[in-house]
């Protein structure tokens, strides 16, 4: 087996590759449906119907996609600079914690000030949480993959303490949850009778802003350059460590905004199941999008379709809803493989 680099790969091929990969992943996962005694075609059709088959289903899917856009952007920005931020889950909860702290009565502002303020405060919290592992990376060469991962557990235990201890809402009938955010902090719904909220608009705007930032600003260029080659960037006189730190603040901030958006838009109060792993799914979203900020919107919607759809499919044909996790994992690996194939050609001899 020999690899030859491909030259002049067209944009169309590069855009199509992830789609083909996703189709291949679905084909592989069909085996699991067959094992469960279901027909794969019927299964995937049920999944699409469950995620996109009605107005309600579509709004539910977009609601689920909202935090995924934020965490996907967080991973995309960091991975572009080869900063392996696996701590999206912890940063998510950090954002939610700060929004709870400030949004449950600590200050009263009109909604048009309160909501932006909570997003900013949450983002600051998430950015600072990622700052520590990043400084350890730039100063002491401590691998950030492990430190960011371990911090997820620490933050989750901290939230556990908050909702069982000092922040436990006495009005919640003994459930471990914090007090709800005040009315002015609640993100308004976009349509009547749906859970889709203003956070979705924010997420899309942030994706567009991130795209513009990465493409058209000096800081964005530096992030991409440092990711492409730290050595060359240092030789060109770029402050590599400062760029990495900036990337961390941006990435951690974006992941934390997912937490603020879920808290103020969907749940209304802090619980331990606010995130079913949005921080980790964000990595899949970013990879499916080939780290492109606008692609993140599409891939977040796709991952949301898989989760929302798999839930209703698993109920309809009576198989485990872990099929959603398996499918997204296989999609991730298939997309990695397809990205390889757009860069190289395999020759057998």
């Amino acid at each position, binding site marked *: *087996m*020999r*690899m030859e680099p491909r030259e002049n790969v067209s944009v169309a091929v590069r855009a199509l590759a992830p789609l083909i990969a996703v189709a291949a992943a679905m084909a592989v996962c069909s085996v*699991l449906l067959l*094992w*469960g005694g279901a027909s794969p075609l019927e299964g995937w059709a049920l999944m699409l119907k469950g995620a996109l088959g009605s107005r309600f289903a579509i709004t539910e899917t977009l609601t689920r996609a909202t935090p995924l856009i934020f965490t996907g952007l967080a991973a995309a920005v960091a*991975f572009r600079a080869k900063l*392996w931020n*696996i701590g999206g889950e912890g940063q998510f909860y950090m954002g939610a914690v700060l929004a709870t702290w400030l949004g449950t009565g600590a200050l009263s502002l009109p909604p048009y000030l309160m909501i932006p303020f909570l997003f900013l405060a949450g983002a600051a919290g998430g950015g600072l949480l990622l700052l520590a592992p990043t400084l*350890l990376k730039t100063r*002491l*060469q*401590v*691998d950030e*993959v*492990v*430190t960011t*991962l*371990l*911090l997820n*557990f*620490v933050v989750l*235990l*901290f939230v*556990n*303490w908050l909702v*069982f*201890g000092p922040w436990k809402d006495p009005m919640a009938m003994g459930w471990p949850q914090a007090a709800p955010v005040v009315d002015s902090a609640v993100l308004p719904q976009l349509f009547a009778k749906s859970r889709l909220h203003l956070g979705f608009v924010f997420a899309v705007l942030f994706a567009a802003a991130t795209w513009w930032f990465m493409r058209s600003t000096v800081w964005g260029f530096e992030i991409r350059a440092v990711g492409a080659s730290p050595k060359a960037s240092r030789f060109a006189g770029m402050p590599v460590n400062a760029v990495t730190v900036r990337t961390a603040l941006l990435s951690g901030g974006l992941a934390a905004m997912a937490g603020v958006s879920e808290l103020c838009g969907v749940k209304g109060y802090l619980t331990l199941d606010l995130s079913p792993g949005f921080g*980790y799914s964000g*990595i*899949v979203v970013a*990879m499916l999008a080939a780290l492109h900020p606008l692609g993140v919107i599409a891939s977040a919607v796709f991952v949301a379709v898989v989760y929302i759809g798999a839930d209703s499919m698993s109920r309809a044909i*009576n*198989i*485990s809803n*872990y*099929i959603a*996790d*398996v499918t*997204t*994992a*296989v999609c*991730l*690996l298939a997309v*990695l*493989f397809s*990205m*390889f194939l757009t860069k*190289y050609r395999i020759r057998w001899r």
Partner: protein
Amino acid sequence: MEILNFILEAGFWVATVRMATPLIFGTLGELLCERAGVLNLGIEGIMAAGSMAGWTWVYFGGDLWTGVCFAAFVGALFGLLHALFTVHLGLSQHVTGLGITMLAAALSSYVFRMLLPKATTPPKIVPFKAFAIPVLSDIPYVGNVLFNQSALTYLAFAAVIVVAFVLFRTPVGLAIRMTGENPMAVEAQGLSVFAIRTWTVMAGSALMAVGGAFLTMSAFDAFYIGMVNGRGWICIALVVFASWKPGKALLGCMLFAAFDAVQMRVQQQSGMTVPYQFYLMMPYIFSIIALIVMSRRAAYPRALLVPFRKGER
């Protein structure tokens, strides 16, 4: 003072050795992979797959030891997948590893639910029992701690010796270590970097899976979703702590497990002065501190994370 008395009790050390066992397997497995230049972030998922595979094997009538072999085989398969992506295709070891973790963990949960759809409380198997080694277990204190454990614990200690011997005393070990340091030189010797890395990652992943199997087949007697609970990630930190040496890895795992046992005990005794969540944070914070302390001396295998392509520099 109470803590000091507690640490001197034999029961504390028996528990420590038991808690160290899955970490020893996981850390050795990760250490092998990294010595060959491949970071294996699939460890968390591979341990989950091992714990599920071994348990299921026994639950459906298999015998305990073939169950361990089956778990190792499943682990090796995931290792092969990791090697195909990172070694042969040269894709990002970080992202592939996370993908393997997600896939292995999700598949374990899916397969478990599909095999036992009606199980509300996790069903149980008859796990490995403590096996007292004749004569040695009669030594006061030490005998009870070291020679009255389950068979998989003895296997973990044996694995440390075997891995250390193979890595530092055999040509195969030399080849593995060279592959992690300077793949070009290995290729110049007429050996295949691809083959060495693939086999090493498979062997390392098999060890991780046995560590997972210990959880269901020795420590507990049932499989719970999410039962690995971050142990895999801690093994990765322990490899750095051990500076990629099997003996130090054993020491690190024992220290870590002892620390964990102490925090459990303190948690039980101190009443409500410090909330239990802060004690549960300690292992993770301890791992981060260990990484910081060891980072100055960390001598990473130089080719770690660097994909090798024939004829490319």
